[in-house]
């Protein structure tokens, strides 16, 4: 098995897919989260229901969707509703189990910045903004993020809090009365971080061959390590085959960080 080669993207996608449970209702983003969900659906979670913020429920895309509003998500889906409905009746009402987040920065308490680097009024780098992520982070039962393990992506504190993880600690999240459990898993190309009792993201798993030191060196805060650190299951040929042959045959999303 040890001669199986895979990219960082493939490693993250496969490990993210494994976090999904059968019958989960997942709020999916395009790109890597979409691949993770479709991989899960084709392996251990055939009853996964994929929801897109464009208002599509139960998508079964016949081709790789290239945007969150791709027409292939619509044809053959279970339902299409307005944006107001998807955010109110689905997300705010508590009908979404899993949210996949994106963002330029994620901090020690799982908070995300997708808005701005530098001051808000005079931005150095103006990012796309919240989109749906402010609400997904608050109201989905479980949130995950996939991101390469790099110091600049993991500052101690985000410059702008686009979406709440545990804010300044778990008590803050409880005080705001948010229904979801927050950022429960950060999948990187080194391993995985999960929140401890205080809401601080700590290293809980390493991918085969990766080390605690690598993780610490690439994290912007003093990364704690779980008492029992897990090693993730090896990437399987079957998982790679589905990804490469069925889901992204031209490698649009799989090639990154190869």
């Amino acid at each position, binding site marked *: 098995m040890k001669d199986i080669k895979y990219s960082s993207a493939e490693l993250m996608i496969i490990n993210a897919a494994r976090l999904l449970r059968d019958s989960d209702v997942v709020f999916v983003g395009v790109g890597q989260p979409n691949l993770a969900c479709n991989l899960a659906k084709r392996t251990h979670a055939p009853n996964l229901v994929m929801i897109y913020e464009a208002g599509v429920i139960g998508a079964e895309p016949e081709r790789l969707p290239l945007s969150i509003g791709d027409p292939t998500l619509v*044809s053959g889906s279970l339902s299409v509703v307005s944006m107001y409905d998807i955010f109110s009746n689905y997300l705010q009402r508590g009908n979404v189990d899993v949210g996949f987040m994106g963002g330029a920065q994620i901090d020690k308490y799982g908070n995300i910045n997708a808005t701005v680097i530098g001051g808000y009024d005079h931005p150095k780098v103006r990012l*796309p903004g919240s989109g749906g992520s402010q609400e997904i982070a608050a109201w989905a039962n479980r949130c995950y993020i996939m991101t390469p393990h790099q110091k600049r992506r993991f500052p101690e504190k985000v410059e702008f809090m686009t979406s709440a993880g545990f804010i300044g600690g778990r008590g803050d999240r409880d005080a705001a*009365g948010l229904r979801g459990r927050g950022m429960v898993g950060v999948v990187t190309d080194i391993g995985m971080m999960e929140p401890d009792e205080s809401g601080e993201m700590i290293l809980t798993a390493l991918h085969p061959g990766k080390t605690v030191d690598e993780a610490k060196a690439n994290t912007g805060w003093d990364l704690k390590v779980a008492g029992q650190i897990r090693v993730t299951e090896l990437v399987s040929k079957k998982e790679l085959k589905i990804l490469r042959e069925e889901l992204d045959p031209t490698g649009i999303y799989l090639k990154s960080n190869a």
Partner: protein
Amino acid sequence: MSKLISLKKAISDYVNDGDVVYAAGFTHLIPFAAGHEIIRQGKRNLILARATPDLIYDQMVAAGCAKKVIFSYMGNPGVGSLRIVRTAIEKGELEWEEYSHFGMITRLQAGASGLPFLPMNQTGATDLEKVNPKIKRIPDPYGGKDVIVVPALNPDVAIVHVQRADKNGNAHLWGIIGEQKEAAFAAKKVILTAEEIVAESVIRADPNRTMIPGIVVSAVCHVPFASHPSYSQGYFDRDNEFYLAWDKISESQESVQEYLDEWVYGVKDRNAYWKKLGQKVHKRLSIKPRYSEKISYGKY
């Protein structure tokens, strides 16, 4: 009672300098043709509102039509950054006002409902609330947590592209329906562009499909392919190649100007634009039909 006029006349009659314009759509049915006509007519100082400003707002900003954007996610969908809007903001050349998706859509829903505001639950992320004074919080009169509120958005003009409409503006749309209905009801004036103008009897054959009623519509324009490079579900595919190309074009002012000269100023209308795209592109974007199951309303 027909409201059927040319898009040129509709933009001329119903879009004024300084207007708040909401060109609706979430990736789907984006009214590019209307945006290009606004550029051709040299409208100025527009406030461009949309949850997801994309290429058409990038182009309108590049052409000098806008003084401000109101948005919740600013990107080239599926590709990356919306370079021109982004750069204009970074350089301090463009005003902006920002919400989450739900905040933006809630503003429209309040506008569509004739309400002054609508509430949302707290999200714990308060930084946007700190920089945008329109986002407020009020107590829950029933004793729960405070709620977040946003004020109604009532654009001067909404522009909505639909699959089919009758000449009075009663419109069927399907596929991703984003915020088209809310924009149409919220706005003071509505310009509709349509892939097809159909007999009223076609609309009346499926009234549950009618999302926009003619009574709120000011102008109906027959503009096939008005949404290219976006798409019209069931009519043609999204031109992903152009979305990728724009990522390059928008890297320099020169190439943007060249694009506008050739594809906006250089064509008379959408018909000329579509012809100019050529048969190879037409073929690449063509799709095979996949029909809905019919239903019966019954004769009563």
